């Protein structure tokens, strides 16, 4: 609230004083703008945008440096072995994401709702402790769970990470365990910002806590579910460390936990008898980029618009 007020004050003040400042800036224009913006733009362009564009360009060449157009893409999508690997990785990636969506969001929302339930002493401590796993490296998380799920230690009898039927789901749940703090904190931020009047009005209308949650709070949280899902989707499509740490580059057993990130690593650097290819790696990365883009656009044109129409 305070922030909005100051920013409003700032806009009015700057609006009133714009003309004289503008002329002064125009006179000095290039030098300080270059000094302020130059370093950031250069580092960002050289080490992020250029490599991205260059990777996409490389996907149109073969390893000898000859231009092959969409040849790499055709090869990847039509070669018997490669296309099977590719679609397997895409499918596994979607399963990985679906587990996050269906497990992480409800748990995050439940924890956030409990933390914002009135008069809860110790909420800061709970909030902090739920977040601890998020601060750890995915590599550590992978090994911690690998040890705990190790049948030798005897917490579980079945080798959950060793069977193709359970490996991917288990890895996804490990990742949920680590990152559940993020949706929780985003939902929490929305829930604490709901004006007391809304809840008061619901209470006067005779709504109990359960009804207040579903009828008042939940619709207000819904747009955040969308944002959280997009963040999760981008992170999941890009995941690598956890599976590499636990299952290695081959993402076993029998590629059951192979996702785009591990497929990218193998095509780029090679594995066992197969040699790596930077242009095929670039091809896989470009397809990952297109999948991420497709997901993000789907959200902006589908989900977000739908949610907006519910708001007023």
């Amino acid at each position, binding site marked *: 609230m305070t922030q909005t007020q100051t920013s409003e004050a700032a806009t009015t003040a700057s609006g009133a*004083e714009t003309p004289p400042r503008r002329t002064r800036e125009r006179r000095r224009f290039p030098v300080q703008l270059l000094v302020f913006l130059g370093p950031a733009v250069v580092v960002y362009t050289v080490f992020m945008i250029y490599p991205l*564009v260059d990777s996409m360009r490389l996907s149109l060449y073969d390893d000898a440096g000859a231009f092959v157009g969409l040849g790499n893409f055709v090869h990847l999508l039509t070669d018997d072995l490669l296309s099977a690997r590719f679609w397997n990785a895409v499918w596994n990636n979607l399963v990985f994401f679906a587990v996050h969506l269906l497990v992480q969001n409800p748990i995050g929302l439940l924890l956030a709702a409990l933390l914002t339930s009135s008069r809860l002493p110790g909420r800061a401590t709970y909030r902090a402790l739920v977040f601890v796993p998020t601060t750890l490296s995915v590599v550590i998380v992978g090994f911690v769970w690998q040890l705990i799920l190790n049948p030798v*230690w005897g917490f579980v009898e079945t080798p959950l990470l060793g069977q193709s039927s359970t490996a991917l789901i288990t890895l996804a749940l490990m990742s949920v365990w680590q990152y559940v703090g993020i949706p929780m904190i985003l939902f929490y931020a929305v829930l604490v910002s709901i004006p007391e009047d809304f809840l008061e009005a619901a209470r006067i209308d005779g709504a109990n806590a359960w009804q207040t949650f579903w009828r008042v709070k939940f619709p207000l949280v819904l747009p955040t579910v969308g944002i959280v899902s997009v963040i999760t989707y981008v992170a999941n499509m890009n995941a690598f460390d956890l599976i590499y740490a636990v299952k290695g580059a081959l993402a076993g057993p029998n590629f059951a936990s192979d996702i785009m990130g591990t497929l990218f690593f193998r095509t780029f650097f090679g594995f066992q008898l197969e040699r790596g290819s930077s242009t095929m790696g670039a091809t896989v990365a470009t397809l990952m980029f297109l999948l991420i883009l497709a997901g993000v656009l789907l959200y902006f044109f589908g989900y977000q618009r739908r949610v907006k129409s519910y708001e007023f």
Partner: protein
Amino acid sequence: MRIRDLVPHAILLLYVVIACGPLLMIIMNSLKSRQAIFGEPFAPPTLGTFDVSGYATVFARARFELYFFNSFVVTVVSVFLVLLLGSMAAFALAEYRFRGATVLALYLALGIMIPIRLGSVGILDLLVSLNLVNSLTGLILIYTAMGLPLAVFVLTSFFKQVPTELKDAARVDGAGEYRVYSLAVPLVRPGMAAIAIYTMLPIWNDLWFPLIVAPDESVRTVTLGAQQFLGQFVTDWNAVLAVLTLAMVPMMALYLIFSKQFVRGLMGGALK
């Protein structure tokens, strides 16, 4: 206290056990003898079972003090550069009106949604041609580029809230634009803190870039060092538990000290 009030506590406590229990168990068992690790995994170390042979193996076989130093340098320098370059760019975008400002802001914001990892092939080529493979400088430049988009985006909105009167008063007193910037920076401290925390974690915890552009022993980071060590010593449980503890305790400790600022920073980002 009524029973109803206890329900949230019960559920939250249960979840805290799920979240922190495994980590506590790893730390506890890293200080126990081999038999005790398998025999009584839930028991804290006692005088009879206390054993730090795992740590001895770790320090004898891997140069963890070097890995910590490398991670520390990479993280601190990258975060510093993200804050410095990011705040400079954000200040300019918030303060001056110039042609192309919106386009430039959008261009810089692109990187928030695009994972830099997708450009790995290009990055590796670039670092090879710049002779920066297996160097901390290479990692620092990548992480700086990775952190800048969000830093510029968030700090621009913070700089826009700095009262214009303040900046103009400084200008009237004869301060140059660089001086005005240096006066405005302390006023966006909450934004800087949030960005510092948010940028630090993925850098410290990253495996991908150390693995592909800086795998050499001399520049190895803690995350990569732990990953490689764990791969080799899978069967030596004492050593594995010791490495896990060494790799996770610094970040956990730092987080627990700054957890309030951390969570508030994330929430601040969410509420904007």
